[in-house]
């Protein structure tokens, strides 16, 4: 049984890895369309991506929108998280639950709502509209990450600082923030990625002036399966790899440094 489970596990590893691996060779293909094995290899589609405004503008839009979403999300979520984690008050558990609601409602439902509501406000197809929608949807994720960090926070350090005469503000700036920094960064990163990846709401509300990369990709896959998508997929994939392996690599190199010096 256990051996069988192991082999099944290996098959699953292949199943998970194959789609991630396949887009890489496709992105270097010279074929006009999806063709395997590629008839030749080249950088043609990379060149096409980096020179075509119809791909670069959505990429840029996505970066701007995700950045603005991150800033807005953090401005709203950080104080609220402090309130919810550190203070006891009536209605706290309900407030806790409400924070998670945007994650519980299916995206397509929100897409219907934003399409009509922002339409009435005249902000569909604008950066502002997409940022507002993405912020509402990113709140739960940023909150979950940050509150987990804050719950594990050792408050004796703050008390120690205060007992040594530091004002609450000073304590916050010199003790609380530095310790929370990794949590804040990860929380902000999650908000950024959530906005950058968000597809369904963007499809409906990011129009001509604020078209995001996922919307452009969706349209392109639906309409013509343009091989440039393989390029973007490879680039996004490389970013994820870098984000996951990078920190570990840096840590490993740091640990190794003394030994390298010794040698």
């Amino acid at each position, binding site marked *: 049984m256990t051996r069988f489970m192991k082999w099944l596990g290996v098959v*699953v590893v292949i199943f*998970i890895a194959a789609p991630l691996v396949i887009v890489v060779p496709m992105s270097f293909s010279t074929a006009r369309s999806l063709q395997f094995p590629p008839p030749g290899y080249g950088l043609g589609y990379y060149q096409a991506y980096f020179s075509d405004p119809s791909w670069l503008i959505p990429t840029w839009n996505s970066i701007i929108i995700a950045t603005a979403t991150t800033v807005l999300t953090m401005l709203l979520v950080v*104080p609220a998280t402090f309130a*919810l984690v550190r203070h006891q008050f009536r209605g706290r558990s309900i407030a806790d639950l409400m924070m998670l*609601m945007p994650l519980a409602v*299916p995206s*397509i439902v929100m897409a219907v709502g934003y399409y*009509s509501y922002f339409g009435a406000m005249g902000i569909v197809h604008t950066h502002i509209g997409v940022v507002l929608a993405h912020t509402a949807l990113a709140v739960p994720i940023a909150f979950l990450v940050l509150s987990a960090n804050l719950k594990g926070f050792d408050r004796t350090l703050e008390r120690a600082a205060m007992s040594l005469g530091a004002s609450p503000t000073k304590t916050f700036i010199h003790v609380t923030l530095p310790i929370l920094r990794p949590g804040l960064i990860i929380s902000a990163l999650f908000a950024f990625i959530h906005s950058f990846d968000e597809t369904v709401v963007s499809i409906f509300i990011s129009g001509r002036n604020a078209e995001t990369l996922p919307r452009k990709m*969706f349209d392109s896959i639906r309409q013509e399966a343009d091989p440039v998508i393989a390029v973007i997929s490879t680039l996004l994939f490389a970013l994820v790899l870098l984000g996951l392996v990078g920190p570990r690599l840096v840590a490993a190199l740091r640990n190794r440094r003394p030994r390298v010096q010794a040698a």
Partner: protein
Amino acid sequence: MTGLSNMTERKNLWPWLLLTPLAVFLVVFFVVPLIDVAVMSFTEPRLTFANYERALTGTLYQKVFINTFLTAGFVTLCCLLVGYPLAYLMSVSSQRTAMLILLLVTMSFWTSFLVRTYAWMVLLGTNGPLVWLFQAVGITNPPQLLFTRFSSTLAMVHILAPYMIMNIYSVMRKIDPVLVRSAESLGARGGSLLRHVYLPLTAPGIANGCVLVFVICLGFYVTPVLLGSPREQMIAGLIGTQLDEFLAFGMGSALAMVLLVFTMVILTIYHRHFGLDKLWG
């Protein structure tokens, strides 16, 4: 005495002050749009219950709802069948192997839905690697894979499996090897080891993973639209068509509300038993 109570009073104002900006924001940009959907479902094109009547009794809509539930159930089951062995493999492998597999799963998790959907389009296409493989082993007339129920289901399982794997792995790695060994020494082997040791201990992870996968799958838009055929539409795709093709906001909203209610019922049941914050935690 009075001073102290004053302090508590003041202290109690703080959380509200800190919460207000977010609360106002969520009301204006989350709750109101959601209410708008609810209102539209009764008022578009005129004050009526007809949208609901149609959404719940029309043959097309019933069919799509049933299909959505069956697909979500099937995808959840597949994710479990795929995720459990992998989580098991990770928990019994060396730390290094487990790390590598975890890295792979996390990578898949963080790679955009669209990229993974596109990858399946590449893999399953008429000129794709799978057909090429078929031909290499002598199958000259391979079956149509793309734009079928098979292709969209497969891609959804692939996209949602990481949720399941991570949930199960997080409980499985906490299983004490001593417990497993002592169970084995008492004669538990194979199936009975799985049934009496692993399943009960990993049940919370399974429940978490299943609810999460099922709920996400219920509202899945991108993959069924891109990889499926109109015969096996899911509800989110149909809502999209209502808006984009027919401009039927009322009907689209009614369908969205029905989807929302189903989702909320499932999540409420989960919340009663486990607490909603555990689901994504």
